[in-house]
């Protein structure tokens, strides 16, 4: 049986809603590679380990998805993602549409535009 930490002992997380502006399509594996490349480049191996960042959901057609990370590292993850200027040779910009403590509230909050 898989060991599961009691809910009261689990660390709280933050969820980021991201949108990628790029002329080409980006799949989930590529986004994961971009995320970890950006984290390692901006804050190093120890910093990247502390972020506990992970791609939760990704919709390649819409270019939107959700990334999970630890609460103290939210700003570092956002900063790292903003340093990405190209994905797969095409110019790209990763925009953080929202930050929240639950996926539900991110999904129900209306977008800026």
């Amino acid at each position, binding site marked *: 049986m898989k060991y599961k930490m009691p809910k009261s002992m689990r660390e709280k997380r933050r969820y980021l809603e991201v949108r990628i*502006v790029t002329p080409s399509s980006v799949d989930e594996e590529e986004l994961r590679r971009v995320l970890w490349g950006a984290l390692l480049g901006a804050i190093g191996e120890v910093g990247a380990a502390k972020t506990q960042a992970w791609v939760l959901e990704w919709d390649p057609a819409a270019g939107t998805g959700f990334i999970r990370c630890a609460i103290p590292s939210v700003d570092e993850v956002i900063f790292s993602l903003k340093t990405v200027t190209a994905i797969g040779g095409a110019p790209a910009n990763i*925009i*953080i549409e929202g930050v929240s403590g639950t996926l539900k509230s991110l999904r129900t909050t209306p977008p800026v535009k």
Partner: protein
Amino acid sequence: MAVDLRGYANPYYAHVASTVRGAGDLYAVEVCDGPYAKRKAVLKAEHPDFVIARGGDLSHNRKLLEDPDIAVMSRPYPLDDTLAKIARDNNVLLELCFADVRAASGYARSRMLQSLMRTVSVARKRSVPLVLTSGATDEYSLVTPRELAAFGTVLGLDPCEAKAAVTTVPRTFFQGMVR
């Protein structure tokens, strides 16, 4: 209600100032290194709403901070304690532009972040107003207010100070310019 003092009009910001005429609510001119007469000639020809000066070495920065025409100073490093006091007394905003950091990479970006962190440290000590700007020109360089606040936090600002550097401080400046 966020205000970007160097960007382009987009739904994330209530007001935007731009260095391109007509791209924002206010038009700014960025003056670089050069003699006083040359700066005056540029301002006379362009008629900007406000002037952004690009920092250089310590003596150059001092001259710029003492110039009454200069409202915002971009790349304000090197900044020492004396310059910080002059900036505070003359109400000059120190601009931390994200586009500069994004354009650099590797060693250059590290050194730039190091300079910006030192600037933030001195500015906080002397209560100099700091403003975070995106420097965006199109959708590929767009930075939202939340992302700018994260950038400020990475540089060493408190979350509240970082948020104020995107909202309260530039908004007060903007309202002063519009009146």
